[in-house]
Structures are given as C-alpha cells and as structure tokens.
C-alpha cells in the first residue's frame, strides 16, 4: 500500500508548477543523458504493443532528485547490476519501460515483424539503433548546433541541398540526426547517395536501412512526390574528396538533376550549410594508384590515417554548425524543368546561397574545436 501512496505523491508533485523538480521541459529531456533515454515515440510505440506480451506501460515520468537519492541508499549488489549502471539517474518506471521497449524491439527483429518501405528504409531499426548511435557523435563529439530549422516545411516535400565534405560522408548522417531531433515535427531525412555507396557491402545495407537511396531522377521524384524530405549533396565525391586546403569552397554541382526534379515536383529547395565536417578528417593527400586499385574515387591520407591504422578512423572532434537557409520556391519555374538555362541558373542560385552562408557561419564559429 505504501508504494501506491508514493506513486500518487509523485504524480501530484509533477502537476505542481511551483515544484522545481517537476519542471522538466522536453528540451531538458534531450540533455546529454538523452542517448540512453528512449524518446517519447519509442515509449508510445512500446506501449502500442500491449497484445504481444508487453504489459501496458505507464506514461513517461521524468527523473526526480528524490528518487536518485533514494536509490543511492539502496543496496549496491544485485544480479541486475550490469544493467543498473545505465539507469543510474532514471526512475524505476522509466527504466522498466526502457527494458520493455528494448525487449519488444529484439522480438520484432527476431521474428521479422517490422515494416520496411519500398526503398528499404527501416524506421524501426533507424529509431532504435542507428539514430541513438549517431546521436552520441552528434551531441558529445561534434556538439552540433543547428539554426534556421524553421525553414524546413512542417509537412510536404522539400529538397535539402547541402555542401559535402569530410572524406567520409558523416555530414549526411549528422544532417539526418539534426532534422530528426531539432525539427518540431521530427521529420525524417531521405538522403541520396552515389552508386558506389550501394555497391559496397555493409555500407549499402546501412544506407538503405537508414532511408537513403540512389541519386537518380526516378528515385528523387518518387520520394518528392510522396511528400518526403530529401537531402542531396550535389558536389558528390568532388566535395568529400577535396583537399583540406580547399575547405569550405563549394565544388562544381553536377548536371543539376536535383534542380529539375524539384521543379518538376514543385518541391521547395532549402539550402543547407554544414560547417565542421571539413575538419573531421582533414584530407592532406590522395594515393591515386591505390584508389584505382580499389575502384574508389580517392584513397584518403589524413594526419591520422593510414598511419595509425584503425585509430586513424576516429574523426577529429571539430565543432559543427548546421544552418538551414530560406526555402527557394520552385513552383513558378515548373515549366522550365527541361530548359537547361533555367536549371543551371537555379542551381547557381542555390550554390551561391550555400557558399555565402558557409562564410557567415564560419565567422560565427570561434574556433575549430570550440
């Protein structure tokens, strides 16, 4: 009976605005502890499977200092000790939900009972494994700061056009986390990748499951026609494989296929400037014969790679800033999708917008690792 009273007390305290412990905003919920705390959707989704042996779950209860103190008094040794560490600051019920959600996830993976869209995008895996992993990098390693997120439409299709850099396409992954976490509607980004991405084992699997697809007209238009948020990096390998000395200088955009796709589908173009990716793996050299041997566009030499072997794969902890520029409406140009002049002009306009913002955002950053 005593336990029931405790729960009630807690509930009452949560409702009381004067209690400082109760005022935990969603923003605070995304504090550095976030990676181990399931998002509200995860919990809602875990609660949505009550018929599968998972009992109905209580709503999310934010951790309170009292409970932490209470836990500290408790005995330290237990069979569940190893798992307990993760929960250090969480309240029992939340912990319970987390366990239930993880188990439900494992069950779905074991029995194949999840949905994948026709491009191979696996939202279940992305939300439960891929994004939480990337979020660690996003929050603690690169400490990404995002601005202009209101320029991404709340619904309907849009084409995010971003600069590409950093030897490995980490910027595409961070952009995915940025929009998912910072956008009020938590929209998903569907990235477009070069065919090399889909030829490589493991990489292709990861790319498809995280929502990427091949950068080709059919796929882009299909995604935009179904109201998706598509991200494209028109510099391609010229961008990621450029030497460190040319950092933040936009390379030539491709044939402008992305521009005509946006025009044809009437999707607005949102220029995106990503600062920070350039310094993750400063490319100081390129071993061309080795690249040719491996069939890769370049073989990177960075201050750490390949000298330190696998350690060289650790990105430098540069400070990242992502800015979403004002959307460019393409509907007035809808008829020009097949006119190369119109396409090139719009492409240049987008390129200029990104380049200008890149310089401005760079000025805002106090130091590379700040």
């Amino acid at each position: 009976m005593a336990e029931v009273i405790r729960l009630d007390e807690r509930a009452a305290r949560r409702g009381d605005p004067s209690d400082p412990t109760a005022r935990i905003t969603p923003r605070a919920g995304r504090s550095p502890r976030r990676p181990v705390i399931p998002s509200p959707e995860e919990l809602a989704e875990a609660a949505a499977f009550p018929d599968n042996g998972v009992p109905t779950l209580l709503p999310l209860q934010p951790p309170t200092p009292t409970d932490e103190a209470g836990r500290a008094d408790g005995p330290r040794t237990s069979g569940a000790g190893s798992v307990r560490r993760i929960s250090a600051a969480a309240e029992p019920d939340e912990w319970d939900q987390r366990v239930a959600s993880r188990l439900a996830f494992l069950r779905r993976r074991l029995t194949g009972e999840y949905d994948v869209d026709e491009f191979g995008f696996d939202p279940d895996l992305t939300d439960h494994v891929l994004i939480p992993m990337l979020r660690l990098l996003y929050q603690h390693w690169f400490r990404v700061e995002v601005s202009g997120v209101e320029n991404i439409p709340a619904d309907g299709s849009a084409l995010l056009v971003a600069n590409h850099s950093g030897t490995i396409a980490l910027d595409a992954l961070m952009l995915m986390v940025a929009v998912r976490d910072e956008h009020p509607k938590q929209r998903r980004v569907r990235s477009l990748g070069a065919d090399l991405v889909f030829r490589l084992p493991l990489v292709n699997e990861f790319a498809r499951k995280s929502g990427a697809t091949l950068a080709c007209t059919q796929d882009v238009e299909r995604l935009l026609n179904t109201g998706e948020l598509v991200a494209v990096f028109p510099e391609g390998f010229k961008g990621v494989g450029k030497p460190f000395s040319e950092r933040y200088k936009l390379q030539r955009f491709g044939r402008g296929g992305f521009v005509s796709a946006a025009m044809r589908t009437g999707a607005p173009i949102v220029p995106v400037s990503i600062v920070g990716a350039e310094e993750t793996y400063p490319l100081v050299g390129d071993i061309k014969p080795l690249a040719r041997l491996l069939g890769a566009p370049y073989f990177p030499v960075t201050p750490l790679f390949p000298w330190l072997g696998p350690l060289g794969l650790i990105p430098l902890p540069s400070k990242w800033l992502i800015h979403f520029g004002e959307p460019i409406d393409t509907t007035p140009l809808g008829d020009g999708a097949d006119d190369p002049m119109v396409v090139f002009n719009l492409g240049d306009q987008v390129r200029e917008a990104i380049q200008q913002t890149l310089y401005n955002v760079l000025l805002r950053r106090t130091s590379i690792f700040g």
Partner: protein
Amino acid sequence: MSPEAVSSRIVLVTGVSRHLGAVVAARIAADPGVERVIAVDTKPPEGEAAALLREPSEHARARSGRRRVPGSTALASNIEFVRADIRNPLIAKVIVGSGTDTVVHMGVLASAATGSGRAAEKELNVIGTMQLLAACQKAEPVRKLVVKSSVAAYGVSPRDPAIFTEDTAPRELPRGGYAKDIVEIEGYVRGFQRRRGEVDVTVLRFAPFIGSRADTTLTRYFSLPLVPTALGYDPRMQFLHADDALEVTHRSVMADHPGVYNVAGDGVLLLSQAIRRAGRTPLPVPEIGLSGAASFAKRSGLIDFSLDQLDFLVHGRVVDTSRLIQEYGYRPRSTADAFDDFVRGHNLSSMISPDNVAAVEHVLLDQIRQARESFLGEPVGARARGGGEA
C-alpha cells in the same frame, strides 16, 4: 464484345506440364466465355498438373460433341492436351487447325526440369517462343497473345533506381541465363507486335512466385535450416502469390489489357526479414563464398541456383505495380501476406516462432522486474504486485 462472340473462344495454353500452366488452362476452361482450351506441352502433364486438367468443370460438362484437334487427348471435357513441341513448326498446324483466337504462352521456364540442362531450357524458352510467335503470325484468327515474362527482365545492379517501372531500361544486360532468355523473349514479342499490330499483346512480368503450394527454388531456399546470405547485403525482395499470378493471367485472357505489366505483391521484405519470418536463421557468407556455395548446392542436387537468382539474392529487385492496379482494378496480395501464406502452407515449424519469442520476451521482462523488485524493495513497472495486468 457480344456474349456469342465470347462463348466461341478457343484458347491455346503452352507449358501445361508445369503447375502454373496447368492451373491457368483449367481456370480458363472453367470460364463460361471459353469454348475449349488446347493445352500444349512437350510432355504430358503428370501428378498434380494432370489432376487439375482432368477435373471437369460444371460448365465444361454441359458441352459435348465438338470437333477435336487430331491426335489430342481429352482431359476435362473442354480441355484437350496436344503433345507438341513449340520448337517445331508443327505448332503452326495446331494453331491454325484448331481455330485458336487466343494464345497464352506459359511455357517460359525459370529452371530446367530435372535431367535436362541449361541448353535445353534456353532452346525451349528462346527457340520455342520464336516458333510459337511465327505460327501466331501466320494464323489469321489469333487476335490475342498473353506472354509470361519475369521481372528478371530488369536485370540486377546496384546502379539501378530503387523501383522499376515498366519503362525502366536495364542498366546492364543480366548475366543469368534465364534473365537473358527473358530479354530475348520480350524482344521477339515486340517484333511480333510490330508485324501484327491488330493483335492485343499482354506481357506479364511476374515477380518470383511464392505461396502455400508453390514449390520453387526460392521456397526451397527459404526452407533451409540455415539460410546463406551475402555478407553486408540485405536486399529488398518482392514476391507474387501464385494464386495472384493465375488471377492476373486469367483476367488478361478474358479482358483486353494490352501492354507490359509488372505483377508483384505490394510492399517489400528484406531478405533477413523474410528469413526471420520463416523462422530460419540467416548465415551471412562473403559474396564470393556464396557463388561457391551455390555451385556446390547445384552439384549436390540440393538447390539449383542460377546466376541471376544469385544476383537477386545479393541486390534484390522491387517493381512498381501501379499500372497493373490501375488497368486491371486488381491488387495482388502484398509481398508480406504472400510470404506469410508460404510459411503457413509449408509448415516451417521452428523454435523461433513469433509465439515462442513473445513468450521468452514475457519471461525475461518478468524476471528482470522481479530481480529489480527484490533489489529495490518496491513494486516495479506497470505490474506493481497485486495490480491487474491489462
């Protein structure tokens, strides 16, 4: 089309010694609009296929006393089996002599019958189609042609768009024998269409068949206890329920839907997901090792895998079916449903069934809660002691 005109239809079906050919012939024969069906193959149907053809339909029983193709065997009362080789020009005599108005070409083989090799399969597929089309071209009464094709026509490559529409041209010529046959067959069909523009030509690009009764290389693959997959690839797959293949073929014969159509179940299953749904365990093997494993399986007679099937298992293939759904007003059951039907029908019992996994999950959750309760000394989670469970 007036009812009289409809009821006088004579349909020739090739490839009836195979399951799909037999069910198509039987289904068409049972339709009141069809007077008779001429079932053609190089060898007489056996077993299940024969039983299907022999089953007389209500409507067929009502008809009697019709002329026959010389040398034919009556099966069900309005189906006649003609043992003829479509690679032989004699097929023209059968078509002209019977007054056939519709030719349904189901004799396109995905895998050679046991004993005969790839050369025989290719000859039957390619030369057979050539001869059959040549015969149709000469036969005036023929006004409809339905050809079984395959989504293998698109080939398999990582440089292709994620979803093929009927208009997508393959990036590179497929390397598998069957897929090459399909490309050639479709080429001949286009040639025929040009020469006989007044004939309605329907080309059905079927996704791989699956279903409770289907017995194909794929169903045998998914029945292996450990299913080898390519390491680092988890291809998207689409299947077609065999019953839907029958339905779409039947509709193509009974109504006019000229054109090329992708026929597949909506939605996608990842290979790993499909294996899990079948209660099997994936065994990732490096792609190079997979070719070796496939040739070993082929030699040992375990599974006969062709190169294009192997490519399919590495890169997968997804097609757009909106043209079919719009034109036929028919939506084949989804890939996931078709696959689940296969799992149920083949009774793939395994330790890793959804019920068992859910039970284990339940027990684990309970154990963890109990451990924590004894540790914290207070009820935990939604199932506080004495509290009812939803």
